[in-house]
């Protein structure tokens, strides 16, 4: 299958077939990039693709291996060289290692929420949960990054500003920002031949005039009273926002085009990998191209309490391939300068490898004291590692940052002031991020 092909060869061949010249050769690729920049200054703004690894990926098996730690901490994998001198990744991250000069790893994020419900909330909103919650919880006390970006930035051509593919992460909702800023979820698999985003097009047997007439009729006959004061919290106001969004999505040609995966050249689709995750990443890129400022790529199954090593040989390698391809593709198109790519989960994993009662294979448990986050693009320095954990990976000890700092960095890069005050429906002031200092090394 295409996913097993050599990365470098693939790039070159793709570029040749597309007539873009070789990667290193400059030429057309560079001219594309220049054009991209010119466009930026007029219309394009920055975007973010958040690759959310639900469950909490191990820092040891990704970007913070500890080759000198005892075997019960080190694990089965070797550490491999990257393009950053002295920096090692875990052995399944080969493709990312080979483009490590395009990205930054923050090895020193930590927090104190060791369960999925609270960890998800903290990392995706930048705020700890207000009351303690447990692993099974899907809670929202504060708007998620995607919803804030939707609120602050909006999108063009009727496209929803915030997509979540193929589902919303637990705390990925809008909270007090309102239903309009909930993610637009594309649950269908873009790797399927028949892929279309359901319900966004007018039914085939309905000629367009009739659909327009129906909407006109609706606008005249909808006389249900609305309580416009935000403090009243009228859920119908949210439904209205959804209706407006639905109509603009249906009527925008540019928006509809972003969903049409078949327009993408076959070689590019191959390069991303002909699997759901690969094509979802490609869809994310298409959406960003169409002007969507925030896309969450939700990828589940990273809660490796058991079976961690076989999982990283398959799932880990797939992640490596897809993320590396996405970053390279964005770079080749000149989009990396305006697109922030973040790869993270709720937390890291425990240093000591253990086999849980009732399990037969070893794994690692939840560990929020050491979290590795991959950051690329949008002016992020290329080829660096920020912070460090101790020699056994127990805790972030150098340049320790909190989720607040990470989330503030994202907002700052997207042109949103993390220190601003938002107001809830009842008019209560709330800081967007309680600690608005971004991670200086990312800026």
């Amino acid at each position, binding site marked *: 299958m295409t996913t097993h092909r050599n990365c470098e060869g693939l790039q070159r061949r793709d570029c040749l077939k597309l007539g873009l010249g070789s990667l290193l050769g400059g030429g057309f690729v560079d001219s594309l990039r220049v054009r991209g920049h010119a466009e930026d200054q007029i219309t394009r703004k920055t975007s973010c693709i958040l690759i959310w690894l639900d469950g909490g990926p191990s820092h040891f098996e990704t970007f913070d291996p500890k080759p000198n730690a005892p075997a019960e901490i080190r694990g089965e994998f070797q550490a491999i060289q990257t393009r950053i001198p002295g920096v090692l990744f875990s052995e399944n991250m080969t493709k990312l290692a080979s483009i490590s000069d395009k990205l930054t790893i923050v090895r020193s994020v930590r927090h104190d929420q060791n369960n999925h419900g609270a960890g998800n909330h903290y990392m995706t909103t930048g705020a700890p949960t*207000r009351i303690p919650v447990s692993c*099974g919880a899907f809670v929202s006390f504060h708007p998620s990054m995607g919803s804030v970006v939707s609120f602050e930035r909006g999108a063009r051509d009727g496209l929803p500003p915030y997509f979540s593919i193929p589902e919303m992460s637990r705390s990925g909702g809008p909270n007090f920002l309102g239903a309009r800023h909930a993610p637009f979820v594309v649950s269908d698999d873009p790797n399927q031949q028949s892929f279309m985003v359901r319900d966004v097009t007018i039914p085939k047997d309905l000629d367009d005039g009739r659909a327009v*007439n129906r909407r006109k009729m609706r606008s*005249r006959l909808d*006389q249900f009273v609305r309580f416009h004061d935000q403090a009243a919290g009228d859920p119908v106001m949210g*439904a209205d926002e959804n209706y407006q969004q639905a109509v603009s999505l249906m009527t925008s040609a540019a928006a509809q085009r972003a969903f049409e995966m078949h327009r993408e050249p076959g070689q590019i689709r191959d390069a991303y990998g002909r699997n759901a995750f690969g094509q979802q990443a490609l869809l994310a890129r298409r959406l960003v191209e169409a002007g969507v400022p925030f896309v969450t790529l939700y990828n589940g199954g990273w809660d490796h309490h058991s079976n961690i090593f076989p999982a990283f040989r398959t799932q880990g390698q797939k992640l490596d391939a897809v993320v590396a391809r996405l970053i390279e593709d964005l770079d080749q198109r000149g989009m990396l300068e305006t697109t922030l790519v973040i790869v993270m989960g709720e937390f890291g994993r425990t240093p000591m490898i253990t086999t849980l009662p009732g399990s037969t294979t070893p794994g690692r448990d939840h560990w*929020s004291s050491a979290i590795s986050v991959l950051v690329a693009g949008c002016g992020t320095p290329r080829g660096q590692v920020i912070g460090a954990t101790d020699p056994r990976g*127990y805790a972030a000890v150098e340049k320790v940052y909190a989720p607040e700092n990470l989330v503030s960095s994202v907002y700052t890069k997207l042109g949103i002031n993390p220190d601003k005050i938002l107001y809830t429906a009842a008019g209560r002031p709330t800081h967007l991020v309680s600690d608005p200092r971004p991670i200086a090394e990312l800026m």
Partner: protein
Amino acid sequence: MIFRQQRCDSCNVLVTLVAFCAGLMSYHSNVQADGNTASAVITFESDIQPQLTRLGCNAGACHGKSRGQNGFALSLLGFDSDFDYDAIAREGRGRRVFPSSAEESLLLRKATGQLPHGGGKRVDVGSSTYEEIQTWIRNGMPRTPADSPKIVRVVTEPSSRSLIPLEKVPLHVIAEYSNGRRRDVTEATAFQSNDRTIAAITASGDGIIQAGPVPGEAAIMARYMNHIAVCAVTIPLPGTVPDSAYETLPRNNAVDELVWKKLKLLGMLPSPPTNDATFHRRAFLRTIGRLPSVEETQAYLADQSFDKRKTLIDQLLERPEYADFWANKWADLLRPNPYRAGIKAVWNIDAWLRDAFRRNMPYDQFVRELITAQGSTWNNGATVIFRDRPEAIEIGSSVSQLFLGVRLECAKCHHHPFEVWSQDDFFGFAAFFSRVGHKGQGLSPPISGGEESIYSKPSGQLNHGRTGLPVLPKTLTGVPLTLGPDEDPREALAAWMTDSSNPYFPKVMANRVWAEIMGQGLVDPVDDIRATNPASNEALLDHLAFEFRQQGYDIKKLIRHIMTSHVFGLSSTPTERNISDIKNFSRYYRQRMRAEVLLDAVNDVLGVEEDFAALPPGSRAMQLWTYRSSSLFLDTFGRPDLNQDPPCERSVESTTPQVLHLMNSPALNRKLGLDTARPAKLAASNKSSQEIVVEAYLLAYNRPPNSEEQQIAIAFLSEGDQRRRGIEDLFWTLLNTPEFSFID
């Protein structure tokens, strides 16, 4: 012994003693007596442990993690004093503390950042906390004597307070000891507000409540040594309302009285009653989950009797749809995934639930039959809960959460920071299920087709997760029970749960029923009842619980009690004096219909039937017995996700995909255009456009159109070829407006 007696009886003597021995004794400022004498000797449990908690040393992400941090492990928030003392004073070959040279102790060097510390600098050298710990080490790390007074409870002073916006008032936290002593522990207390923007404790650490700029309510939780107290803060709406405004409000029953009382406290007034048509629609949707027919609506609107609202509620409660609607709600809580528990088992528990609601089984009996179920999963549907959750600790935590509103799950591993429940409580509770026997074919996903028998074994034991020792069954309020071989511990549990002195049991169900009828729980989330998540109206919840129990746990009577209140019939339209109210029921809160209700409503309006897999033709969505029956409509509008365990609560927030689905889904458009559907039939009838418009309004909105609506709608309709098309479009229009999909 003499040492201890002296300490208890006369602190002065002790101070002299210690000062003599150690040569150093500083008065430490954070221990102050409330009129009583101060405890001057610094001991582990009463002085050092609270500091470890306050400083965050034993927090979940630091040394409180179950495996500790860098080899130094403390119990989470200090729930295990023996363990913590050993960790500090004995482990690590005593490196952590040096009595002879206290300032060289690792404990202090790390905490002050003098040595690299993952958790950073927590204490300043020379601070009062530093001095306290140093003195304690120098004195040889004394433990608090076992017979010294214990903390009985912690209280906040005041325990409730009304504030004006931006006001600041001091809050004191007092620990009360078994010897009657009261001690101000404010400085060593951790605070948390459930709504920081309304009111919070300032960062200064001296317990000042700071009110925010807007009116509302907040609960400020204070935690000191695993004891919790809450201070309720209210910031009323500015301006005054004369008492007479409350005195003249209607009081159909005690519900009204208690709601008005709360509104008075907040300076709010209720909205006026809603109109008949809205009430009629609301009552149908809330009791039986379906829209009234054209005839029912017309008859109700024409009825002139003064008590027709009450009559309507009585009639609705006797309808057969009642059972399906309420069983369906309970299925959300109990229904297993057929891929896990097996199709037949899932079908059986569904049938059991429907039967219970059909018979209006008293709620205590309902719970007793479930939790003591015996027999085959193919015959007695109630046994299926034990098939789905075969382990005592699994079924234990779900029983406590579902029926007592107590979330014990956290306590499985550690003492919960915001709960009073300990590991002992968790395992003691789970031990009631330690004798549940399973015979036959157990779970074998993804088919699990076999039959299993659930029975009570003569013996069986559950071991404590931390100590590994066998645990005896113990209720949350009782003592450990020793049971004979022929006794089923579950019977004892059921007896305790349904006993008239159980404080949790009736409250949880009363709150659930209230939430289903009023659109929102008094406690929210509905099954998370605890001091730190107070009800928006505690007195009302107490009343409902009392009433429910008095009426023999009759669910229909409870529903009737709530629905016949004046509060249930209020308009949803806010007034100036309640616009910001979103939890005190000063007006009815609008809510989108839940997925099954909405799908049935769409089909009823269009006069079509849904074709569900695994159900006979003509079945309603409300009759589905498994979430595995595929329906894009139900998925879009939300139903429990069986891949989550436990499945999360349904969300009723509306989303853009839902709007798009109602507008564009091929399935819905096919229904609109069916020859057998209502639009085609109306088109073929000899009814006039006006008659058709009236009928469409009565079907979808359950009210006649006003004259303006009638004119506009008629103008869109046409005769001849286009007649049917126009009628279809009218139905599309009504189904795509919020007046259809919301309960108002």
